[in-house]
């Protein structure tokens, strides 16, 4: 709460040339406030990718033999080392456990020991950002960055360091090159950033942390609940993870905007998606485009025939699942999304024939709405695997959802006994209506909240912002009576 205003105030006051260094210092301080040791890791990744970039560019300039081969080697070493760090810190224990399970089946002695490491926050985010850079340099899409401080800031820029968006060199670094040109005062830009931050805090503190109570109550004890509560909790989690994750991106975008940087949009009304493919073009956009650019396309994308395309899709989604968490349930979650897409593609033609046969109107709200609802239901179903503590728990959860119907709870007030009483539930409903309105504006008018408000009369703009701020202050989940949850995406 104090960190950002202090950083911002000094950022605007200090000489323009010192801005990069100041932001870099602030970023490292921010990161080290979790754990000072993490700085070594991010520093290492930064130096490694920076050095590799310079080396590759140097090769091209010196016209040595087998440039491509050497570049490939550098790239491979760089990627392997970076992924190696990620693998040890994030997937070490998962790998040991998985191998143990297989060995167990074969009655071979189990590997002893576990890594006793804390997962560094944001490691998946900055590693991917750095990897994106090195691949771009390898491909010759961009020149290697010569200024180490600037490059270090690109990797560690504090607003988006721990939970994205995962930025591209072309976008962010080019802005950082012009850091001295950023005007000290641009009221509209600052107001716009502030509104986005307010909206982010609203999503996080009023919605995500509130619905989390219901979700945790049911998921932690799902054997005590029937279908109504379980479905409600699954929908609740869909809301929670959206508001949690998108809020962080929103705050990052807003904070960066106040300082004069435009970060890429990371969430664009994902639950209004009309197909799973559409969903992934709206959900965590910076990650899905990363996977598209640096994994799907290198694998051959859709250029090598249908079967290969399907395999590529599955690889990307399984990798994406693993990126989200070191556990089989995350892999299944990713796999489900991959499967949804493949099945969707396969069914495309039969669906078209069926539509024509029954003369189903497709240019109407009801058709679009039904597409949205089906997509949402598929996404919610997949989220169960994401949220459940293990694959077994997820299967148990779904089994109960089907075999234990409790429809009467919708009518007799039973839903108020899931951790949120009537008052809390009312606040949640009102907040979700506000969320829906803001997302509808984004969806229909293609405007973010700040842009929409600037078009309105001043009284309306101010009323909306003040109402949001007051709701955060009053209804936000914080303070000693309630431990504010860490942003759940920090450790992915």
């Amino acid at each position, binding site marked *: 709460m104090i960190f950002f205003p202090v950083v911002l105030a000094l950022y605007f006051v200090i000489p323009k040339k010192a801005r990069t260094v100041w932001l870099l210092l602030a970023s490292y301080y921010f990161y080290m406030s979790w754990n000072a040791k993490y700085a070594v890791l991010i520093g290492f990744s930064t130096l490694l990718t920076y050095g590799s970039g310079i080396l590759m560019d140097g090769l091209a300039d010196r016209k040595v033999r087998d440039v491509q081969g050497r570049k490939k080697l550098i790239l491979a070493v760089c990627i392997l080392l970076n992924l190696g760090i990620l693998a040890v810190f994030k997937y070490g224990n998962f790998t040991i456990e998985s191998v143990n399970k297989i060995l167990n089946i074969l009655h071979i002695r189990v590997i002893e020991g576990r890594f006793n490491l804390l997962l560094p926050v944001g490691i998946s985010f900055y590693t991917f950002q750095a990897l994106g850079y090195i691949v771009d340099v390898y491909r010759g899409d961009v020149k290697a960055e010569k200024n180490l401080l600037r490059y270090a800031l690109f990797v560690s820029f504090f607003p988006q360091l721990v939970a994205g968006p995962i930025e591209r060199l072309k976008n962010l670094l080019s802005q950082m090159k012009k850091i001295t040109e950023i005007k000290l*005062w641009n*009221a509209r830009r600052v*107001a716009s950033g502030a509104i986005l931050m307010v909206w982010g805090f609203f999503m996080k503190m009023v919605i995500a942390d509130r619905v989390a109570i219901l979700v945790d109550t049911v998921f932690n004890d799902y054997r005590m609940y029937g279908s109504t509560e379980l479905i409600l909790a699954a929908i609740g989690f869909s809301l929670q993870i959206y508001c949690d994750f998108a809020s962080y991106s929103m705050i990052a975008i807003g904070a960066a905007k106040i300082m004069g940087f435009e970060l890429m949009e990371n969430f664009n009304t994902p639950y209004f998606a009309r197909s799973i493919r559409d969903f992934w073009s709206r959900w965590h956009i910076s990650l899905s485009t990363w996977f598209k650019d640096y994994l799907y396309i290198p694998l051959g994308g859709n250029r090598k025939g249908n079967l290969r395309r399907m395999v590529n899709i599955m690889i990307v989604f399984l990798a994406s699942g693993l990126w989200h968490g070191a556990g089989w349930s995350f892999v299944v979650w990713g796999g489900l999304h991959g499967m949804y897409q493949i099945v969707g593609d396969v069914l495309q033609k039969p669906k078209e024939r069926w539509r024509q046969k029954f003369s189903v109107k497709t240019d109407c709200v009801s058709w679009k709405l039904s597409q949205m609802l089906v997509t949402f239901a598929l996404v919610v179903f997949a989220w169960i695997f994401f949220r459940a503590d293990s694959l077994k728990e997820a299967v148990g959860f779904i089994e109960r959802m089907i075999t234990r119907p409790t429809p009467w709870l919708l009518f007799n007030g039973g839903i108020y006994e899931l951790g949120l*009483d009537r*008052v*809390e539930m009312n606040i949640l409903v009102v907040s979700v209506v506000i969320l829906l309105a803001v997302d509808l504006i984004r969806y229909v008018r293609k405007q973010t909240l700040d842009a929409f408000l600037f078009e309105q009369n001043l009284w309306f703009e*101010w009323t909306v*912002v*003040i109402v949001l*701020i*007051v709701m955060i*202050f*009053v*209804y*936000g*989940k*914080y*303070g*000693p*009576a*309630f431990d504010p949850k860490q942003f759940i995406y920090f450790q992915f």
Partner: protein
Amino acid sequence: MKKSIIRIASFILILGIILWKVNSILSFKFADGNSILADFYRLEKNTVDVVTIGSSHAYANFNCGVLWDEYGIASYDLASSMQPTWNSYYYLKEALKTQQPELIVLEGFGTSFDIDYSNDSRIVKNTYSMKWSRDKIEAITVSATEERKQEFLLDYARYHNRYATLNRGDFFPESEYLDSNNYWHYMDTMGQYLFDQFRRMEIMDVSKIHEPEELNEKAEEYYRKTIELAQENNIPIVVIVAPYALTEEDQRRFLRAEEIAEEYGVKFLNTNLLLDEIGINTARDYHDDVHLTVQGSRKFSLYIGQYLKENFEITDRRGDERYGAWDRCAAYTEQFRKNMILKNATSLDKIAKRLSNQNYRLLISLDGNADAEDEVIGDFLSQQGIDPASSNVMWMKEGKSMIWEFDGEEAKQYMSTKLHDICMKRVPEGDGIYSNKIIVDKKEYRKVDNGLNVVVFDTLTDRVADSFGIDSDNNYSIVRI
């Protein structure tokens, strides 16, 4: 640039005002702590002559109405629940910022505490209403453990989520209200809390204990600081221990506290040794182990007022128009005491006599198969100036005048007081049968099915003073439950 600065400044100003208002609505207003200090700040400057600081023993026993009515002492009970000496010290500091009292009374219960830190609720009640200053920060940091200081200093974070418990007092803190613990608050009682239910108590005789025991180090440190603070400001201070069911250990500590007071030349009065002189009736004057009822506090304050007058110079302010609030306090306290007597009266005769109070509004209904001309009921109605021979079945009276009376037909009447809404109605139940209802603030008062149901609404304290039924099925017994 200029335009945008004005714009942003206006926005921040509006937001600031709204958040300030939101903060004041959500802040804690516990009647046994926070509101006492908040009300103290609202008093006119330099009007209070005697400030009584301490725990609930101070606010429950030092009856400001009696001290005013009988001795013209303008006193205020600046106390808070389970107040340790360190909070008494800061309360005194706070008091001296707006008032120049002629005497400070320190209720001595806090000297017997053997704790180094307060519990959460007591930190809230003893510090959260203090205006922000260095003293408030110190008062909080001295109350909480090292690890938790910060948590209490960020006070808004602690109470922002109490929106589901908001009530009238949060929006109108100067009105009468029930706080979120169901404690009642009334501003003109000058900090005192009045109890109207009694319990028989066994009080240990501590007069034979003569061996003092050391006080808790922290309790002693701030006890001394409190005395020193008063003396630095040239204000006389007296330590008085109010009556309660004390233990032997407490008494030993009071002996030590007395020695310390003597070191400073300060008078120390342990009234637990003076119960007979004061006239405390252990069967009827205690509300619980540690507080007197309004009847008990009256006796206690009559004694204390006399003691203060004899030992200190305190100006008699009666007749001074700046002190209207103390007139209201005295009237309120006395009426509250009368209500207590009524509420605890068990014979119909005694009740009937008490009902002649000019402040009472009587709501009476004749219910079920009871007959107005029945001897006992008829007598009671006659005593209230109602003709038993009329065909009416519901009556509302104020003083001697009849406001409404209903006969057997469907009818209803509404009336509102300062804070309450009253309704009397006859509603059809089918088959030509009607039933009577007396409703105050949506709550129906009905004690008997056959007989008289009576609600006594006191317009001075603006509350239901008593409600009872006269059960014609059960030998005209008085039913209050």
